[in-house]
């Protein structure tokens, strides 16, 4: 495996380059695992996008021709293979940040602090700050390249699912795999992992802390995602027939006294015609009905805002890591 690494150059390398090279050498098995994972995911998603979808669609059509019930309840081995591939790849891509955090906390930082190789490195002309910068920058590069490949492929697969996939643009796992938030969470996982490694200074506790914190961050993202961009509120008959693929958030009424009540479904079963709604409103002493939602077009603003917030958390964690390391090594003296 070592033979695949570039031979050391004859002239002395730039110090940053040498540091990056030794980092890659130390974590070459992680690098191979990452390459393998990215290639496997990319292959699975391409299969699902092309042959997987086509075979499943043809199979479903064939069943529909022979049995009318199969048109309404599509099934069969090819459809289940296709949807299982989509579900599994989406699951893995949306949980990559946890994997990155686990590795960064345990292997990248925690283990080196635990067995003392970090302290040894700091005595050998690599300052702690440079050591940490390399630990963040080199993996960040590989994470970015991987995400840049996986996210477009996932979008292809997700959007190509057509009527075979019962998905929405706001599904939590799909949303986290379909845009820049995937990269933002992965980089956040790297920073959180490095910080956890520095805080615990031990391999396995760092792994536990990093995964737990990153899991909490992704869950918070899922929970508060709808609040990250202004919602649209419509009243009257328009609120009864929201645009296609809208994410409905709340629905309520305005009483004749002007009181606005949320989470109230009165008159929402009127059939959408203005006359029907009017008679229901008059009957129930209500002035109007309203609905709050995110239209499909909010996908990109929501992606970009969430990416910004998550990247800010990542920057905060990275800064905290630098400050922590600086304080520790300064307190322990120059030689550490």
């Amino acid at each position, binding site marked *: 495996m070592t033979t695949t690494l570039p031979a050391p150059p004859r002239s002395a390398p730039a110090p940053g380059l040498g540091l990056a090279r030794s980092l890659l050498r130390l974590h070459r098995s992680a690098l191979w695992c990452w390459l393998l994972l990215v290639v496997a995911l990319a292959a699975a998603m391409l299969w699902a996008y092309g042959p997987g979808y086509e075979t499943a669609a043809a199979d479903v059509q064939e069943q529909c021709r022979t049995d009318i019930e199969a048109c309404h309840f599509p099934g069969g081995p090819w459809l289940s293979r296709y949807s299982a591939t989509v579900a599994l790849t989406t699951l893995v891509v949306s949980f990559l940040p946890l994997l990155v955090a686990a590795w960064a906390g*345990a*292997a990248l930082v925690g*283990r080196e602090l635990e067995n003392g190789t970090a302290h040894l490195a700091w005595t050998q002309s690599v300052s702690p700050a440079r050591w940490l910068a390399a630990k963040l920058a080199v993996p960040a590069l590989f994470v970015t390249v991987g995400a840049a490949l996986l996210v477009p492929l996932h979008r292809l697969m997700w959007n190509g699912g057509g009527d075979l996939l019962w998905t929405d643009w706001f599904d939590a796992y799909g949303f986290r795999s379909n845009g820049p938030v995937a990269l933002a969470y992965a980089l956040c996982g790297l920073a959180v992992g490095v910080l956890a490694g520095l805080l615990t200074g031990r*391999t*396995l*506790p760092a*792994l*536990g802390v990093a995964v737990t914190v990153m899991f909490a961050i992704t869950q918070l993202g899922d929970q508060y995602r709808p609040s990250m961009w202004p919602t649209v509120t419509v009243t009257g008959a328009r609120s009864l027939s929201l645009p296609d693929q809208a994410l409905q958030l709340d*629905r309520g*009424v305005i009483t004749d006294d002007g009181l606005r009540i949320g*989470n*109230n*479904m*009165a008159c*929402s*079963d009127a059939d959408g015609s203005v006359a029907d709604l009017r008679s229901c409103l008059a009957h129930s002493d209500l002035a109007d009905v309203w609905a709050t939602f995110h239209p499909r077009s909010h996908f990109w603003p929501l992606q970009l805002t969430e990416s910004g917030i998550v990247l800010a958390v990542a920057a905060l964690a990275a800064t905290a890591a630098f400050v922590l390391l600086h304080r520790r090594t300064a307190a322990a003296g120059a030689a550490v």
Partner: protein
Amino acid sequence: MNTGQLSRAGLPFRAGLPLNTGLPWTVLRLHRAALIVWGVFLLAALGTLVWEVEITADAVRERISACAGTGGLCRLRVAIDYGGTISWVSTLVYYSFFAVAAFAAGALVGRELENGTAELAWTQSVSPTRWLAAKLAVPALLLVAGGTVFVLVFRWAWTANRDLMGDDWTFDDVFAARGPALVAYGLCGLGVGALAGVVVRRSLPAVAVACGAMYLVNHNLEVHREDLWPKVGDGVRPESHYWPMHLVETGIVLGVAVVATGVAFWALRRRTG
């Protein structure tokens, strides 16, 4: 810290006693951080269930009565707050077997084989077999005790306010958390983790292998739960099938746990001669 543990592990033992009181105590002491985290997690889970049933349920009912005749969706939305929390608890506790597997593979076995403390312990009158037996027996006992308490409390909490909850007995987490399968998954995580640790002998790769293996076991069982017991007539699944299905799954998971633990002992004995 390790040197302190080792002198404790080594000195107080006399050969010949089947399970020395010192050895379990050493395991507990060495892994006290994990013990504390696990205890806090379990207490938080139990506390949340009791709090939801005893305190939150009444408040939820008040909010529902405010919905009056404004349609079923209003009621449903209020109830989601209540049922959602309980479902979070069962989901986290159910899937905590991943953490058990990671702990067993990494901290319990892999780490000690990696840094040589295990070999040192074996030279000090603790045989490899007894070393592994103590490492597994103590967490197993805790998992059985804690898991049983959780299952009993969860069964009570799940039935307390059925009208406020949107789930049913077929949900993955509910299906597992209402019976011994929950405990079986914990023990399976322990056995598979120990096997990964003994075979891989390095903490981090062992964690990855153990979690991957547990995902395969759990995912395949979740997908094929339907096939664990024959359906009635044209594919109807009555709730009375819960226990047969649940016990078959428990048996399979326990079988995996026993086989993994057995292979772990066998592999360790082969390695150490």
